[in-house]
């Protein structure tokens, strides 16, 4: 497939995934900030959301102290933010539009409809009261797009590059979320169920739609080290780093099968995958959760660069 087409599809996948993550992050944050402080309500919830979105610096450049109204606008529709949800959908669409032949008609229409829907919803002033309508529309639109792609696209390079972008972005998003909240996840002696941080932990799970999954996997109250275990090492959890890297390696396998070549991106991804399968949460805590996450984010970025080089984006 054309390198330019591959690049456009890869970025379509990334931007759609990022839009979905931001929508979930906003939902979870709105919920957390709404709790009374005696029950874990967090006045700093909105600045935490900015950090998890990787948007703290961009926000600081154009705004003062993060207020709820400003952060909501910044993460949804603000044109000053290169990663606002609207901007992500816009980028996804212009990437897809440049390679219409790479997508099926259904997948393109789902994306185009998402764009029109976001254009319609962005007209109103978004507040905590109505941002839910917006974030739900975004999550639904991304799901419809994913579904259309899953159901209609040929299992060939076009589909694999789209999925590859989504998987690399998803790993990045989960890692950023962990990076912002890592201090809450360190093991300590707390009376079970008595911590105010309970709401913080469940917010992390909500952000990646994993609260129910947690209960199925551990059948236990929410404990911080198990949250970290789930999001890093559990390969059945679709947003865990391990699962994302299983997907990345599988997709690179498919892409390599066509040419019979394994490039540098392939080797890097396999290496990261191996670490995620051989590691365990106790070792990570012993050597430093923060350092582990930071190193992962850097490795994941390097993989993005290696992919671009290997496929001549």
């Amino acid at each position, binding site marked *: 497939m054309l390198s330019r087409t591959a690049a456009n599809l890869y970025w379509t996948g990334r931007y759609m995934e990022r839009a979905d993550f931001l929508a979930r992050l906003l939902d979870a944050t709105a919920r957390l900030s709404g709790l009374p402080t005696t029950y874990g309500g967090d006045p700093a919830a909105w600045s935490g959301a900015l950090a998890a979105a990787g948007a703290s610096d961009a926000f600081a450049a154009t705004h003062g102290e993060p207020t709820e109204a400003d952060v909501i606008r910044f993460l949804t529709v603000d044109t000053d933010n290169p990663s606002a949800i609207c901007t992500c959908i816009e980028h996804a669409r212009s990437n897809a539009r440049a390679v219409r032949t790479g997508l099926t008609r259904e997948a393109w229409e789902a994306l185009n409809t998402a764009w*029109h829907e976001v254009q319609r919803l962005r007209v109103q002033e978004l507040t905590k009261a109505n941002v839910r309508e917006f974030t739900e529309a975004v999550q639904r639109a991304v799901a419809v797009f994913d579904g259309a792609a899953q159901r209609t696209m040929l299992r060939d390079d076009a589909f694999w590059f789209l999925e590859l972008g989504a998987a690399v972005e998803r790993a990045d998003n989960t890692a950023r979320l962990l990076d912002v909240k890592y201090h809450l996840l360190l093991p300590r002696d707390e009376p079970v169920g008595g911590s105010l941080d309970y709401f913080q932990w469940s917010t992390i799970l909500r952000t990646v739609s994993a609260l129910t999954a947690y209960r199925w996997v551990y059948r236990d109250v929410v404990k911080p080290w198990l949250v970290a275990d789930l999001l890093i090492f559990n390969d059945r959890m679709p947003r865990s780093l391990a699962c994302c890297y299983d997907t990345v390696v599988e997709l690179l396998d498919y892409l390599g099968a066509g*040419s019979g070549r394994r490039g540098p991106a392939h080797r890097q991804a396999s290496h990261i995958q191996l670490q995620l399968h051989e590691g365990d949460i106790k070792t990570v805590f012993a050597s430093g959760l923060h350092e582990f996450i930071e190193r992962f984010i850097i490795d994941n970025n390097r993989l993005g660069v290696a992919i671009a080089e290997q496929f001549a984006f």
Partner: protein
Amino acid sequence: MSTAFDEMDGWPGDATRDAYAQVKAWLDSAPTELLQTRRAQAELLFRRTGVTFNVYGDPGGSERLIPFDLVPRVLSAGEWKRIEQGLVQRVEALNALLADLYGAQEILKAGVIPEELVRLNPEHQLAVMGHRPSKGVFVHVAGVDLVRTGPDDFFVLEDNARTPSGVSYMLENREMMMRLFPDLVASANVAPVETYPDLLRETLRSVAPEGPEAEPTIVVLTPGPYNSAFYEHSFLADKMGVELVEGADLFVRDNLVYMRTTEGPRRVHVIYRRIDDAFLDPLFFRPDSSLGVPGLLSAYLAGNVALANAVGTGVADDKAMYSYMPEVIRFYTGKEPILSNVPTWRCREPEHLSYVLDHLPELVVKEVNGSGGYGMLVGPHATQAQITEFAAKLRADPHGFIAQPTLALSTCPTLSEGRLEPRHVDLRPFVLTGADGVKVTPGGLTRVALTPGSLVVNSSQGGGTKDTWVAGC
């Protein structure tokens, strides 16, 4: 102009024409609210699909829909048969003309066409003089514009032999009608158009250069997402199942053309290019072109890649050459033209120029190399100031213009603010020529001037489109 021939109702006082029996019955029974609902539905669907075009020089609304009118334009099978024969004859003559103009130039030696019309024509590409394109085909895709003034009076208005557009609307309009009014389409026995992309791919495949590869690689070359017809480029590539490439995706090495893929370079054999000659290869044509591919022309001249349409077809379809088409057809086929030309005054000839200057208020004046309805004067609709200004342009550059009588183009019922009103239409059928001959898809694109009385149907000038039926098949 008030007594134009109507596609459905004929001349004033005539009964409904036979081909329209089903459409007439449907229009009589369908409440206009239903039509309006369906029209809104159609617009929504087109927007969702992204069937849009970009308007040049309009920074505000860069993506627009071409208005779609629900009332189809219907041709009878008999009418179509004659049109088809005429189109085949015309396009065969165009291909013969181009082979001759870039070869022995017999037609110039015979004095049928003035030699300077070719020699001074900027579209006559000296770079390809003497080159015979793969399988001898020059015009693989033609979009011949026809107008009608009476039951049997069809005229060719333009031979678009460079990169005619609009075929995606022909296909999308039919999809829309089948979706909105399946029973109506079925009841009228309409000839299908959906085979066009397959025919196009087979046409392109048939002109691939000979080589060891079992399967030639075909691509569509687009100027990119900002081009007004980008949707169509992506649509056709998708329907044919071939890559849509931009200039930067291609490169030439040792006179072979390759595209840059994720698995390394891949040889390209046939390029359906939707960019003009001037932008194809910066080494030969415009050096500032970033749309083209350096070295492409050398690969083409070496016979290693087929370009559709061939380089240099513009010499055959400008409006000055157009006026000689009846003679051209007689010269190469030995037969009378089946489809007539519109009478044309060539402003380059002094007697014609003075006639044109004396009669501007009743004539349509066009630039010889213009297209898209830009830069033309429609005398009956022009102000005195516009006419004076145009007269000055004509005197300054008579070679640049031709003039034609203002034809009473046929009308077709069209939905306008809840009512059916007559609006002028034209017709652009699409004609494919491959190694195995000429094929015409039944119907084509009907363009409609939505402003009452207007004769300008171009989408860039506010025109709309209709589905076009060859009925009773």
